[in-house]
């Protein structure tokens, strides 16, 4: 038990440190961007006096350290400032989008993990046979395609040719229930297809590795039927290293979300991030970057806890 607390505690401390570092980098990066926030907010024809007044009102003349501390404090309290461009509260702009992006990412992950396990376990038992070669080749090809290619291919098939799903996903924020669900399907499917190959290959390698362990032979010689051998003795042990890999694919997933949302005009934080960077809407960019960083840290923490839950050896250490 002490081991769990120690392990969990160190991971938590590490997560907090990572978050602080992310916030600092975000703050620095957005402050050295060659854009004067006052100019962006007031337009080309603002007078120097107006700009000075704006800067004073926004506290932009304070030293950077003080501004950073105020910014972090406000962000934690939930005061995310106002958009320079639309004058809206950032909270109102970003808040609902976080939920949609999260649903999109989680749904893709929840779909991808079982598919990847089934494919990996299936191919690991047929290594070198035609079915394994076929699946491995296809997954390798898909793995090497960029997300937007997969997305466009799916749009072509399901939206253009079959016409059963919408070509773009702005409907995810409005319209009837069914229209909303339909708007989620294509981006979700694209993300799933992007995620599956890598995880499936890891599962295949890990299952193959574990299958040659002496305890699997011992179990077979205890009369354990093939299915029990695979799902009770091999897969639980093979999944330990895979969980860590899944945590690492989170980075790919988040980058994927940003691209996919743009491809499908999906109203999530990725799409807003891209448009805000374009319009130099610094407060929005800052908050979204922070939220993405938080998501990444939390997912990794969850993966660590999952490994802890799956591996009794780590728990007692």
């Amino acid at each position: 038990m002490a081991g769990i607390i120690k392990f969990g505690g160190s991971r938590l401390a590490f997560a907090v440190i990572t978050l602080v570092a992310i916030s600092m980098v975000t703050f620095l990066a957005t402050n050295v961007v060659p854009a004067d926030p006052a100019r962006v907010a007031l337009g080309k024809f603002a007078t120097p006096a107006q700009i000075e007044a704006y800067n004073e009102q926004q506290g932009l003349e304070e030293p950077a350290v003080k501004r950073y501390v105020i910014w972090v404090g406000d962000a934690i309290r939930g005061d995310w400032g106002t958009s320079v461009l639309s004058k809206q509260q950032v909270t109102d702009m970003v808040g609902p989008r976080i939920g949609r992006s999260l649903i999109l990412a989680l749904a893709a992950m929840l779909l991808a993990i079982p598919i990847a396990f089934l494919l990996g376990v299936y191919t690991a038992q047929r290594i070198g046979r035609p079915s394994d070669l076929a699946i491995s080749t296809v997954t390798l090809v898909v793995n090497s395609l960029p997300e937007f290619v997969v997305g466009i291919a799916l749009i072509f098939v399901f939206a253009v040719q079959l016409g059963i799903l919408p070509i773009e996903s702005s409907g995810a924020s409005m319209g009837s229930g069914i229209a909303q669900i339909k708007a989620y399907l294509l981006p979700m499917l694209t993300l799933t297809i992007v995620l599956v190959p890598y995880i499936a290959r890891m599962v295949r390698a890990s299952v193959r590795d574990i299958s040659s362990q002496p305890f699997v032979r011992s179990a077979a010689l205890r009369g354990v039927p093939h299915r029990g051998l695979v799902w009770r003795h091999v897969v639980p042990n093979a999944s330990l290293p895979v969980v860590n890999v899944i945590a690492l694919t989170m980075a790919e997933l988040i980058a994927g979300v940003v691209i996919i949302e743009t491809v499908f005009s999906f109203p999530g934080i990725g799409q807003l991030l891209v448009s805000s960077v374009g319009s130099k809407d610094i407060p929005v960019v800052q908050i979204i970057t922070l939220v993405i960083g938080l998501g990444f840290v939390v997912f990794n923490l969850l993966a660590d806890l999952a490994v802890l839950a799956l591996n009794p050896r780590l728990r007692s250490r």
Partner: protein
Amino acid sequence: MTPALTVHNLTVGYLDRVNTAEVNVVVRDVSFDLHSGRLLGLAGESGSGKSTAALAAIGYKAPGSVLISGRSQLGDVDLLTTSVPELRNIWGGQVAYVAQDASQSLSPLMRVERLLAEPLRLHLGLRGPTLRKRTLALLEGVGITDPESALRRFPYQFSGGQQQRIALAVAMACEPRVLILDEPTTGLDVTTQAQIAKLIDRLVKDSGTAAILISHDLALLGTICDEMAIMYAGEIVEQAPALANKVAPRHPYTAALLDAVPRVDERGLVVGIPGLPATTAVNDCCAFAPRCRFTTDTCRAHHPELSDYGQGHTVRCLRSAELGALSSQRHPPVASVLGSNANTLLEIQGLVCSYRDSHSPPVVDHVDIRIGGSEIVALVGESGSGKSTALRAIAGLHRPDAGEIIYDGVPLAAQVTKRPRTQHRDIQIIFQDPHASLNPRHTVASIIDRPMSILFPERSASDRRERVYFLLDQVRLDAKIADRYPHQLSGGQKQRVAIARAFAAEPRLLLCDEIVSALDVSVQASILELVAELTSQTGTAVLFVTHDLAVVRAIAERVYVMRSGVILEEGSTDSVFEHPEHQYTIDLLAAVPRLVAVSRD
């Protein structure tokens, strides 16, 4: 009485790795009977086909293996013609298997309760309270204290010996008629080994199961088996009732193996078997002919069949009738003449070592060791005794917390990097696993040359090259292997290269860390012979760290017995082994199985 399992003319091959159309025969014409309540010992060096034969006998086909012929009759069923789905009803039920290393053979993510319950559910259909009662009884039967809490734990939470007890409980769960024990005591400490052997003996006698015990430890087999079979190159070359104990060997291989086994109860150096074991079966000559001291032209031209000498004693040797019972070739005990020990080469005083990050007591606790000028001194202890840490401290690989290491009158620096070159030259170390201690990207020649190029920079390349060949010859390796890489060599050859490398530095003190424990008995014997011979020629002193008491008896003049970081007893090997004083030494010696001296008349 009909045997529980009758194996007849079993022949098994492996698909050739390069040319998959070819099959290398690794088990040839093996026949044996297993009787209820009796234990058959199956001995032989690694690669002799003993595990393959035993697994094939219960219908298990290893990946890449091919069953060529044979029958294995369990009651009315021939296991070799039974399909795998049907075999699954037999495996774990009527036939059980125990693997070498229990920590590797019990599924690591399953609690003991699930491990025990699995065969009981599958084969006996037990559920609920009956199932639980049975699992508790099984754990009690193998001597696990507090079975209630043991059920809730994972295998890794037990010691090696306890894990093997649990593995035995799982195997005995459905009261099998046949039990295959594949090196169940290998890798365990001497005392644990003795306990597990006793448990196996009791389980077999009590349950009336027919068991086969595979081991390379002839003494162990001799103590608990009713019958023994010796395998060489995939064939049984000799089979007899409790061979080593009661009957003199008739096959030259058996006799040679017995001479190669170090004994705790007999002084004198072991005798190695020249050459390398054959790895595949041979059918146009005697497989042992190239290594046998009785070989004639007939042996090289004809394949021997088994001849029967009555009372279940069969021998596969063309000359067995004329040679009769074979006598030992072991060196007669020699008086301790190896060098004078009056002058002290190494003196350790109050050595204390511990590992950082642990609040447990030090692993080496105020140890004093003295090594004379050209003495062979053994440091013996079970795993965790701190013997290897002490050796590493002398080598400068572990920084001691306290104590002095005085070499040739000068205190040694704690770290090897702080020691002068002359000391590097003088103190050399050989490790247990030559596979890990030789750089896989260097050739044998450059491995042996390396210490010379560093320690004797004044020597020319051609001088060094000459010396590499001299050293190869000294360690009995062919000059041809100079340009090979370690992975192309056998384990014994690799250890010879490691020895040559150590002697390339012309050391005055050689530190040996379990250098023979990963090797087969015949190879082990020749390595021991080699070390004894080289050190007596060069006058090099040796500190020999080992867990094997018999090896100590074979090579060392003096011995230190260590437990939990403390030296419990020291003295000349003969006096410690013949009149042990500390209770721990007495217990250790009692735990070692003896090869009862074979009658020599």
